[in-house]
C-alpha cells in the first residue's frame, strides 16, 4: 500500500512538473498579443519555427516552435487572420497554428514533401502540393483535416484559387502543364498544355532526360480573368482564359523563365528569366512584351511598391542583390548588393506598400526595403534559414 501511495505521489508530482513546464513554455506566447494585420510571419526552414516580426517597429516579437525536423517551407495566414497554415515539408504534415494561443493546433498527415499551397478566398479550403509523390492534398481548414488527395501530378509546384472559390489552378514543375480544378467536385476538370517544349524535346531528347523545368506557378491576373503560366524549358508564357480554360495566347519571353508576378495595379506581369538573366515586362491588356530589362542570376522573386511603378527583383549570384526597376519608364533603376554569397529567398510587401520584407537564408536575416527611399535595413538572427515570409492581406508567393 505504501508503494502504491508512493507511486501515486510520484505520478502526481510528475503531472505537476509536466504542467509547470508546459505552462512556462507557453507563457511567453500567451502573454503575446499578435495583430496579424501588422505582423510578418517568417518561416525558418532549419530551426523549424515561425518568427513573428512587428512591421511597425521591425522588432522580433517571438517565435512559434513547429516541431523537430519539420523543416517548414512556407506559411500563409488564413483570410480571417486567426490561423496560420504551414507546410511541414520533411515531416509530411500540414500544420495549423492558432494565432491567439500561438500553438500548433492541428498536425494533418498528408503526402510526401509538401511545399507550396494556396488558401481559398473564404478560408475554408487549401490545396497543398506534395512534391515527391505527385499528389495534391485538399485540406478542410475548418475541421483541420485532409478531405481528399488528388493524384496524377508531376511535382505540383504552384497553386492559385480564383476569386470566389469557383476554381483553382495547379501547375506541375515536372511537366509542362496546368490543371484546372473545380472547387465543388475537387476534381481535375481540364489539363492545359503550356509552351512548346515538346518540339525541343524531339530535337534534343538528351536534355529532357536529365532535367525538366516546367511550370512553376499559375499566376492569375488581379481580376481572375486570365492565368499566366510560364514554362521554363520553352521560354514561353501561356495566357489561359479562365472561363474556357483555353490558351488564348503564347508569349515568348527569355530563357528559363521562372514565373509571372502581377503588378499591384494589374497592368503588368513581370517574368524573371534565369537563363539569359533578364526580366520580361508583359502588358496584361495587350498581352504582349513591352520591355526586356537586365536581370541577374538565380532570381527568386519580384515585389512591387504600392503604386506598381517600382519593382524589386531578388538575385542570388555571387552576391545577394536587389535589382530595382522603374516600371513607369520601363528601365533599370539601379542595384543594391546586400552581401556576398547571400541566398535571397522570397519577400512580402506590406499591404500599404511601404516596406518589403525579404528572407535571406544564408545569414539568418530578413532585409527590409523601404520603398519610398529604397533604403535597406536588416533584421538579424531571425531564425535558422528563413525561407518564406507572409502577412495578412499581402500578395503571397514562394519558390
Amino acid at each position, binding site marked *: 500500500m505504501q508503494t502504491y501511495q508512493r*507511486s501515486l505521489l510520484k505520478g502526481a508530482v*510528475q503531472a505537476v512538473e509536466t504542467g509547470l513546464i508546459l505552462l512556462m513554455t507557453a507563457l511567453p506566447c500567451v502573454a503575446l498579443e499578435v495583430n496579424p494585420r501588422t505582423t510578418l510571419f517568417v518561416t525558418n526552414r532549419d530551426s523549424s519555427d515561425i518568427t513573428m516580426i512587428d512591421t511597425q517597429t521591425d522588432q522580433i516579437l517571438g517565435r512559434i516552435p513547429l516541431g523537430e525536423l519539420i523543416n517548414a517551407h512556407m506559411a500563409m495566414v488564413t483570410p480571417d487572420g486567426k490561423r496560420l497554415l504551414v507546410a511541414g515539408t520533411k515531416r509530411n504534415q500540414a500544420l495549423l497554428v492558432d494565432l491567439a494561443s500561438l500553438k500548433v493546433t492541428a498536425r494533418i498527415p498528408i503526402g510526401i514533401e509538401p511545399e507550396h499551397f494556396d488558401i481559398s478566398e473564404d478560408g475554408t479550403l487549401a490545396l497543398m502540393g506534395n512534391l515527391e509523390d505527385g499528389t495534391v492534398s485538399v485540406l478542410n481548414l475548418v475541421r483541420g483535416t485532409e478531405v481528399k488527395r488528388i493524384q496524377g501530378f508531376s511535382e505540383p509546384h504552384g497553386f492559385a484559387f480564383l476569386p470566389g472559390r469557383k476554381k483553382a489552378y495547379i501547375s506541375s514543375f515536372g511537366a509542362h502543364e496546368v490543371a484546372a480544378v473545380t472547387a465543388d467536385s475537387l476534381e481535375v476538370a481540364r489539363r492545359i498544355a503550356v509552351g512548346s517544349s515538346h518540339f*525541343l524535346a524531339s530535337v534534343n531528347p538528351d536534355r529532357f532526360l536529365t532535367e525538366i523545368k516546367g511550370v512553376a506557378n499559375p499566376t492569375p491576373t488581379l481580376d481572375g480573368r486570365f492565368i499566366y503560366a510560364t514554362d521554363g524549358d520553352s521560354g514561353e508564357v501561356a495566357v489561359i482564359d479562365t472561363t474556357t480554360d483555353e490558351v488564348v495566347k503564347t508569349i515568348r519571353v527569355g530563357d528559363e523563365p521562372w514565373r509571372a508576378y502581377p503588378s499591384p495595379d494589374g497592368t503588368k506581369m513581370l517574368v524573371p528569366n534565369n537563363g539569359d538573366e533578364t526580366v520580361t515586362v508583359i502588358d496584361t491588356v495587350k498581352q504582349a512584351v*513591352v520591355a526586356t530589362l537586365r536581370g541577374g542570376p538565380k532570381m527568386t522573386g519580384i515585389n512591387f511598391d504600392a503604386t506598381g511603378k517600382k519593382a524589386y527583383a531578388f538575385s542570388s549570384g555571387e*552576391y545577394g542583390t536587389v535589382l530595382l526597376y522603374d516600371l513607369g519608364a520601363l528601365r533599370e533603376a539601379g542595384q543594391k548588393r546586400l552581401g556576398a*554569397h547571400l541566398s535571397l529567398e522570397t519577400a512580402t510587401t506590406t499591404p500599404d506598400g511601404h516596406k518589403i520584407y525579404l528572407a535571406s537564408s544564408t*545569414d539568418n*536575416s530578413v532585409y527590409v526595403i523601404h520603398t519610398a527611399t529604397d533604403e535597406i535595413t536588416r533584421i538579424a538572427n531571425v531564425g*535558422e534559414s528563413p525561407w518564406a515570409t507572409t502577412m495578412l492581406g499581402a500578395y503571397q508567393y514562394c519558390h
Partner: protein
Amino acid sequence: MARKVWVVMAAGLLSSVFGGPNHIGAQGPESATAEKSQATSQEEATLPQTVKAVEAELAALKAQVQTLESKLEELRGKMVQVEPAEEIKRVSEWVCERGHVFSSVPEGGRCPYDQTPVVSREQYRKVKLARRQALSEIVEARLEEQSRRRVAVGVSATGIIQQTAGAGPNRLRGEGSFDVLLTARPAFNTLFFADVEAIGGNGPDPFTGSVSGLNADAGSLQDSDRADRVTLREAWVTTQLFEGRLTGVVGKLDLTNYFDRNTVANDETSQFVSGMFVNNPLLGQLVAGVGHQANAPGLHLAWDTFRQWRFGIGVQVPEDSGSALGRTPFTIGEIGYSTQLLAGLGNYRLWGRRNGGEKRSRAVGINFDQWAGQWLRAFGRYGFQTGGGERDRHAWSLGLGIRSLLVSRPRDETGLAYGWMRAANGRAEDLAELYHRFYLTEHLAVSLIAQYAFHLAGNDRVRPRAGVLVSGLRTQVNF
C-alpha cells in the same frame, strides 16, 4: 488510441481499489455481510482520497502517454536516412571591448559585465542544422562545392569551308579554329581566364584582296613546315569593386570583348563571318591580312551605373610584346546607353580611340542594336578615322538579325547585313552577307553563309576586284 488506453487502465485501477466479484466470492457467506458492511463504511471514508489518488495516477499516465507519443513521433521522423545538415552561416554578433560575445544586442547596448559599449559585427560560423536530407541532396551539395573550387574548362571548335566564284579565282578554302577556355577563381569575386587557340587555314582573303576580311575566324597559326602552333590568345584576371559597379580587367586582352560590342553582329563563329560585321573596321589596328584585332597586354576599366549608362576605358600596348610596354599605348573609351524603344531593348554606344602604333590615327564610332518586336533585331555601326598618315576614312554597316519564327527552333537565327568602308589604300570595299544558323543540338550549330563582295579594295599583292561571290558552310561545337 491514447484515450482507449486510459479507459482500460482506469477500469482496472478502479476494480483493484473497489474490489470486484472475485473478492466477495472468496469469503464465506456468513461473514460476508458483516465484512461487507465494515468495508463499505471504510471505503466511504477513504473514497475522496482514493479518487484524488486515481485522478493523479491518471494525470501521470496521461503525461507518460504524451511522452510516448512524442517519442513515437520522433522515431517516425527519423526512420528515413537523416544526416544533420552542415552549413557555414554568416551571423551577426555583438562584442564587448573585452571580447565577450552575444548573439543579440545586450540591454542598453552595453556589456552586462563591465558596461563597456558593444559593437556589432558579422562573423562566419559552421552550424549543424536539424534538416532531414536525402542522400542525393548531400551528394549534390558536395559536388557543387567541388566544382566551385576547380578550374573550369570549355572547348570551342569552328570549321568553315568557303567557295569563291565570280570575279577572281574560283577556289575552295577550308579553315578551322580550336579554342580551349580555362576559368578559375583565385580569390573571392576574382576570375582568371585564359584562351589557348590553334588556327589552321587563311580562308579566301589572301587571294581575293579583301581588307575587312571575308573570314574573320581565319589566320593560320601554322609554321612554314605546316606544323600547328598553339598560341595564348587571351590571359587575364578580372575583379569587381564598389558593389559591382567598377570592373577591372588586366592581362593579355582582346579589347573587342569590351568595346564596340553588339548583340546582333559581334561573333564570327555564330553570327556574321565577315570582319566588316564583327567590329567596326576602324576600331583598331587589324592584324595584317586577317580581320583580327590584335590582342596584347592591356587594362580595361568599366563603370556600370546599373541604370541606363555604362562607361569604359581601355589601354593596350601597341604590340603583343612585353618590350612595348613603354611605348605610347592604344587607348579607347566608350559610353553605352540602354533604353526601351519599339517595345524592345536598345543598346547605343559611342566610342573614341587613339592608336599608339607607328601610324597614330584617331577614330570615333557609334554602334547600336535594337529589338523591334519579339523576332527582329537591327544593328548599325559607323566609324570615322583621321590622321595616321592616311586620308580620312569612313566605315559603316547596317543589318538585321531575325530569330526563328518556328517555336521548335528558338535559337536558330537568320542574319542579313551590308557594309561599306574606305580602305587605307583609298579604295572602297563593300559587301553583303546572309547567313542562317541551325542548332542541331544545344552544343552543335551549322550555318549556311552567302557573301557577295560588290568591291574588294585589294592590297599590294592582289588587285582590287568587283563582284566576288562566296558561299560557305560553318560548323561550330561549343562545350
